[in-house]
């Protein structure tokens, strides 16, 4: 409470109750998903039939647990591959963009900056279809002109990586730029005075200073890629990343193995998120 302001105790308690209810609302779906991962029933719903680990370790049909479910494990592998590629691309481009916008002065700088932000305000599905149309057009022209089929440009993992990269790069640019802005350029100049070349100065002074932001941006990029659905949906080929595979199963209705995998996802993303948050903290301190 702002201590100097008197408040009616009834209102104050009602307010606290509202905040409490809000957090129950936030937690409820996550709690039920986790709890039903241990329900000894073929469906992720009531009644509660007792506790089981089958949805993690079961290996007999129909009780195939997460660690024996080939297609889900495969989908996790696909997602990790996509997320790694997107992370590396986005952090690399985010870093060069940060240097460009923080260090260089050029015509159209403001225009380029606004353009750099726009992927965040374009709905993900639209990004997906526009990239699909363009790559498909290029592939068709290549086929008509040279008679070669360019598989890279047809729906599939390379397109998924490009689609996700198209907006995640904006986020990494923002995170890394924010840190570079706080950097004291005199440190770099001191290195130059001591005889370092520009590249050596950047590599030994500036990049280590940026490292926490680059790692933080990388974690964010990895999570955003891993969880992306809308853009991926339009660009996916035969190899489905995890979100797409889960979506297909959800539509059909599935066993609590979905809860088991959701619980694992929650634990991993919570750990990564806490890591990213503590990096941010350390940075501002």
């Amino acid at each position: 409470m702002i201590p100097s302001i008197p408040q009616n105790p009834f209102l104050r308690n009602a307010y606290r109750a509202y905040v409490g209810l809000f957090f129950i609302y936030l937690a409820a779906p996550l709690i039920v998903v986790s709890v039903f991962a241990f329900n000894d029933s073929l469906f992720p719903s009531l009644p509660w039939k007792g506790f089981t680990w089958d949805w993690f370790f079961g290996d007999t049909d129909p009780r195939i647990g997460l660690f024996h479910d080939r297609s889900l494990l495969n989908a996790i592998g696909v997602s990790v591959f996509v997320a790694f590629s997107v992370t590396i691309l986005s952090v690399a481009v985010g870093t060069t963009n940060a240097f460009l916008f923080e260090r260089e002065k050029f015509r159209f700088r403001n225009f380029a900056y606004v353009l750099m932000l726009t992927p965040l305000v374009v709905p993900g599905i639209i990004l997906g279809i526009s990239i699909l149309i363009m790559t498909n057009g290029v592939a068709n022209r290549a086929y008509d002109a040279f008679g070669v089929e360019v598989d890279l440009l047809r729906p599939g993992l390379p397109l998924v990586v490009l689609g996700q990269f198209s907006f995640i790069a904006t986020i990494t640019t923002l995170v890394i730029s924010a840190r570079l802005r706080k950097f004291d350029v005199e440190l770099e100049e001191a290195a130059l005075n001591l005889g370092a070349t520009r590249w050596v100065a950047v590599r030994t002074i500036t990049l280590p200073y940026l490292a926490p932001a680059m790692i933080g941006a990388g974690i964010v990029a990895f999570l955003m890629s891993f969880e992306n659905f809308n853009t991926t949906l339009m660009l996916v080929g035969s190899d489905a990343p995890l979100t797409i595979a889960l979506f297909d199963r959800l539509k059909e209705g599935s066993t609590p193995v979905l809860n088991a995998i959701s619980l694992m996802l929650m634990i991993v993303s919570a750990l990564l998120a806490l890591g990213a948050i503590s990096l941010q903290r350390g940075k501002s301190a």
Partner: protein
Amino acid sequence: MSRRLGFYLLLAPLVVWLGALLIIPHIELLLTSLQVKVKPRVYEFGFGNYAAFFTEPLYWNTFARTALMSIAATALTLIVGFPISYYIAKLARGRSRAILFVLCLLPFWVSELVRTFGWMILLRETGVVSNTLQWLGLSSGPIEFLYNDAAIMVGLVYTSMLFMVVPLVTTLESLDDSYIEAGYDLGGNGFAVMREIVIPHAMPGIVTGCIVVFMLSLGNYLTPILLGGKDSLWFTEQIYAQFITRFNWEQGSAFGFLLLVLSSLIVWAGLKLTGQTLGQTVGRG
């Protein structure tokens, strides 16, 4: 000389990224939407796809419905989220403030798919809410809460909450407590202080939150499909159907372009209304 070279090396990734994944794809999207099929594999320039949108009631009804529901979801998110943000920014103190804020963020690091799955378990006929009501004796039989507009609304508000709470907390934290105290000292009641001091100060945060939430709701695909069922009539579903099911990319592009125009108009209007720029709103992140 090497300075110029460095500049172009930094510029190149930005140009390739924005050119190949943002500008050209959207030009192709527009051009494709202006192709009208006259015979199989023969296309002509024209506005036929847009005409089809305006003459087929299903299409523009779905479009209008998506827009209205998104506006409602945005308003609801603001109404639910504002008191929470105010509590975190102004009433909670020290550690508890930091903990509440992180608790607010954590659910959103979990995939949207998992969160939606949680709501399905809660709301379905055999789900937790229906069973609780029966157990309490409030209902004599199972109730289906899924597959209606209210379920879509619950899901959209839940999914969007983070994007409202974060900008609100940031702007509210920057409001000095003494202004609020002064408002009371001058004889204002709680309502007057809210209306005259707190809300005007929080306006940039409110607009940022509303823009992002509206855009995300408009472009959402998962929540309406999974919580609203087959008849959810969301516009992104129409786009998906044209692209993937009917393979009518020209019509789908026209739909996509219309959605993009609506979303951009709202972003633009929101920024104009409050005199902000895109850099100030999204760029802060």
